């Protein structure tokens, strides 16, 4: 176990280094960040002066080494647009993002889990038909269409729920539905098909042949095994929701990390984009680690040293 964690830690360091390096140089290809910081019409000599003051006129490699120097001391630099430490700007928005992403995932796992199980255990029933048609539509509906529709109906017309912003539980309902729709659909479809796969697995057949009750077989063997691909998908999607819920955040005026990233890139706010990328990379690595640990719980045959 300790060896496993140490390897993972080393690998994570390489991953974070890679993310930082790619983001750092890719951003510099997008052009001069100073242009968007000053009012339209600012003369070039003053743009150059500000560029110099911010150190963007130095050779790229010097900037890169300098950035790492600061990073290793815990200094992520100041946002160009906000004039505030970049790291705290990202961390400030993390709770709102996490709240939305985790709640959506929870809803998706519960509803998707029930729907997938029902569909697999009651093959040919009306339940299966409803669950699977619902899942297909859920997977095919574009997020922003759904979000705007929900706002139009439940906020603008019916006045039942707030149109946006972060507040109490009522503010969460519409964005969670919007965000959970796709994940619910994919979880239920995946769970159904992997449950059906498990039926034909030798050890499940053996368990059944040994005379275990149908319930014991289902919970002890089938569901356990079928959850492994589901956990993988949940892990990947949680990672995506943490950084990529930008459309839902935009429609519901939700103060999350996704919107911050998009704004930061549009404003060429290099330090802020870099800080966000690092925070998200670490978060995603953490989620992946959790996923791997879950594998072990679910299937004792999987050993930690060779999980990919």
């Amino acid at each position: 176990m300790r060896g496993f964690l140490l390897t993972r830690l080393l690998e994570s360091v390489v991953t974070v280094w890679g993310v930082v390096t790619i983001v750092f140089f890719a951003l510099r290809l997008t052009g001069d960040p100073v242009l968007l910081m000053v009012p339209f019409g600012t003369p070039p000599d003053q743009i150059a002066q500000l560029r110099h003051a911010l150190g963007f006129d130095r050779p790229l490699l010097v900037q890169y080494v300098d950035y790492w120097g600061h990073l290793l001391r815990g200094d992520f630099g100041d946002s160009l647009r906000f004039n505030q430490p970049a790291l705290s700007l990202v961390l400030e928005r993390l709770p709102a993002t996490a709240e939305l992403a985790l709640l959506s995932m929870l809803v998706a796992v519960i509803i998707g889990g029930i729907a997938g199980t029902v569909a697999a255990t009651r093959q040919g029933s009306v339940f299966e038909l409803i669950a699977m048609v619902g899942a297909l539509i859920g997977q095919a509906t574009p997020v922003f269409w759904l979000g705007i529709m929900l706002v139009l109906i439940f906020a603008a017309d019916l006045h039942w729920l707030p149109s946006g912003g972060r507040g109490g539980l009522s503010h969460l309902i519409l964005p969670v539905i919007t965000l959970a729709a796709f994940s619910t659909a994919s979880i239920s479809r995946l769970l159904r098909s992997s449950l059906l796969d498990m039926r034909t697995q030798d050890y499940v057949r053996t368990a059944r042949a040994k005379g275990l009750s149908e319930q014991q077989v289902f919970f002890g063997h089938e569901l356990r095994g079928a959850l492994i691909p589901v956990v993988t998908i949940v892990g990947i999607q949680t990672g995506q929701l943490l950084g990529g819920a930008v459309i839902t955040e935009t429609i519901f005026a939700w103060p999350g990390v996704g919107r911050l990233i998009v704004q930061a890139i549009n404003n060429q706010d290099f330090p802020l984009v870099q800080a966000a990328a690092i925070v998200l990379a670490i978060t995603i690595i953490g989620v992946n680690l959790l996923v791997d640990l879950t594998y072990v719980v679910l299937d004792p045959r999987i050993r930690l040293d060779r999980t990919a």
Partner: protein
Amino acid sequence: MSTPTQNDPNRLARSRSISRRHLLRRAAAAGVVAPSALVSVTRPGVGLITAAAQAQSASKVSIALSTDINTLDPHQTATVGTDLSVISHLYTSLVLRGPDLKLQPALATLWQATSATTWTFKLRDDVVFPDGEKLDASAVKWNVDRVLNPASKARIRSWFDLVKEARAVDATTVEFITSAPYPALVDQLSMFFLLAPKWASQHQPASEAMGTGPYDIVEWVKDDHVSLKAKTTYWGTKPPFQSATFHAVPEVSSRVSGLLAGDYDVVTGINPTDIKRITDSKHATAGAVASARTAMVKFNTLKAPFANQQLRQALNYAVDKQGLIEAFFPGLDVQPSQGQVLTPAYFGYNSALKPYPFDVAKAKDLMKSAGAPDSIDVEFDLPTGTYLLAEEITQAIAGGLAEVGVNAKVSAMPFSTYMNKYLPQRNLAPMAYITQAWPTLDADGLLTLFESGNQYAYWDDAQFSKLLEQARSTLDAKQRLALYQQATAVMREAAPVIFLFPQPATYAVVNTISWKARPDDWVRVWEMKPAG
């Protein structure tokens, strides 16, 4: 995103080479101008709000804007519609531009040009920061010094390009010394908000605020809302609403939905097609005013094919400005630009000019005499996500130009990419959609963007540039006006752009509040009144 500002890259260079004759003339002009430039405080309507509005002061107002503010530091932003609007509730400026677009006293009660290169301001003596620090002449000087100091990396540094220094003559008198005549200085200072020197050096003005404005900040939840509450001791007129909240709601349709749902009282930047629906709801009223921001198609006149003036004129005839307005802004009070980029709100506006009429035959004739081929292929740069309905308008223009054989290929790009093409790469496409405004509402500023040698111009016209230069050498309003009339006439003829129309500023407001959007983007709670 791109709030236009005051500056002129050539001014410094020029000021060094001003001739003796110019200097003499300027001095004479200043002598004449000085007494009449005195502005009195006793103008009617100076009070920030009416007495009626004060009666119901317990209420609150909730406003939805398209983006969150970036900073609370008044010297690090030039964005009027969000940042500076919120900041103007917290801090005081020397002067303020009222809803009628005229300058009003704020901290300064009187101002005058005391020489060609000196503006003198008389200040109130009763403006004190909540912590007891006085907002006096030396505090004003400290603020100017802060912007001028390169170490503070002030984003609005270019506003003070011509300002050599601010001098505190006594506690209530400040002099601004400029390196050349700067007629629009006072207008520019209406956007310059004043920090408390001692407080600012011990706090983070970017994320905290302690000012002398009518409101105090309660909280700023980033990308969500900024909430304000009225000061108990404010030196000016008490504002009508006890508390105000600015929400950041990026999606247009969500702003409208939120208004109809009762979440917001005032929203800006709505889609013109929603105006009828909102007004029909009986809950709110929507409308638009012609803003001081002019939409245009900028030609890259420095290279083929639009180095040719006849061709540029031809395209001005080929675009149906009225048709575009009727299609995209139906029922709104928007008129085509009158053959100039200035709107009537600007000093220097030329009321004698007329727009190019829509005349395809004339356009084709001009193209023929310009020796243009039957079909011209050009790129047409379009910055996305920045200007109202830019994608639709650009495509419609391209569609119209196809009628005269100009195949404009629309090339959409993020605003940052666009700006990089525009400035450092100097590689703007032959045609580019752009909207421009200048917050001082002075021709010296907006027209400067077209002056020879200016990086923003992509146009090189000696006659036009000479007129601007002459206008800049004097503070005499009449003389300046005459010169700008000539300059705008030259520009209409030379057509470095396709003149389109002022971009409408759309808004919606619940029926319990009366308010109208301003042509210059400011959103100020004290200009809103409880209706009825």
